[in-house]
């Protein structure tokens, strides 16, 4: 199972994450700095991933 993690213009492929949090960390992103959407809906970091999915990360850290 492979999860595509979309973060800005980049896509990271993370293998076998069990949860959204593992997928985010697999993309080398600190989960504290993003909110996560799956199929257009906000999901918790504890959400379990059971198949090939795509998740979108939205940066919440102010940059200026």
């Amino acid at each position, binding site marked *: 199972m492979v999860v595509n993690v979309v973060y800005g213009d980049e896509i990271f492929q993370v293998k076998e994450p069990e949860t959204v949090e593992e997928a985010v960390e697999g993309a080398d992103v600190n989960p*504290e700095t993003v909110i996560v959407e799956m199929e257009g809906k906000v999901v918790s970091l504890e959400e379990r991933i059971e198949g090939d999915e795509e998740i979108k990360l939205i940066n919440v850290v102010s940059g200026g």
Partner: protein
Amino acid sequence: MSSECWKCGDTAVIHRKYEGKSWCSEHFQEQFESLVKDTVRENDLFENDDRVCVALSGGMDSSALLLFLVELFEDWKNAELIALTVDEGIENYRDESIEIAKELCDDLGVELHIASFKEEFGKSLDEIMEDKDYGCTYCGVLRRWILNKKSRELDADKVATAHNLDDELQSVFMNYLKGDMKRMVRLGAKPAVIDDEKFVPRVKPFRETPEKEIALYGRLRDLELHQTECPYVEDSLRFDVRDFLNEMERKRPSTKFTALRAFDKLLPVLEEKFSEEDPSIRSCEECGEITSGDVCKACQFRKEI
């Protein structure tokens, strides 16, 4: 399989590690608003007849603050809200967020005022930066100058800013790392008020709210997210501190709250120690705005630009 809200069992949108609970959209929003109301009440941020000017950039934090205050003030019959946006003049950045601010104010029925660097200082930030290196230094000083002057001209009793838990803690750590204990006294939900009629007091209703939760609240309330990064943003000490605190929070949930509470215990001591050393506030010889020197920083910059 979904993680579930601890209150109702619906699908969770957030798991707060620092309290060990997951929340659905509805209960998260309810609890978010309740916590911000606690900050407002415990710090006496507003009076029933206040005219409050919200510093609205059009970013997520200030948009969420405006929305929250509009709803809060629905029950405060004599309180008034206006919004003020400072247009620094940053092409393809501020013009986008100003449009968001305009739309939001239209939707919420809030009077929006826009003040610009160009009008006040004769140059936009883009023009200033043609021969300068550190945009944030100029921008911060000039923006605060405009915010105070314009909000006073608009008869505001207070300026509400969207400074959040992350912003506040970053400032605490930065001041500590720079050894600037005196500046710490300017922090807090309702920073020590300068007793001068030219100063409009500032309040920070989101001071105890994590940045991430404000973004989530805004997202769930369908606020538009302005994600363009300021072109003049610098790799600064603030960024190092921000990344450090986020990493600490990841490894040790609740670090940010604990650190803020520790600072709040120190603040009265700092106020007692350092307020006495403050030079008396006076009027700037050039512009008449308040300053602790003969000429305010904005006027010093005005000459440089």
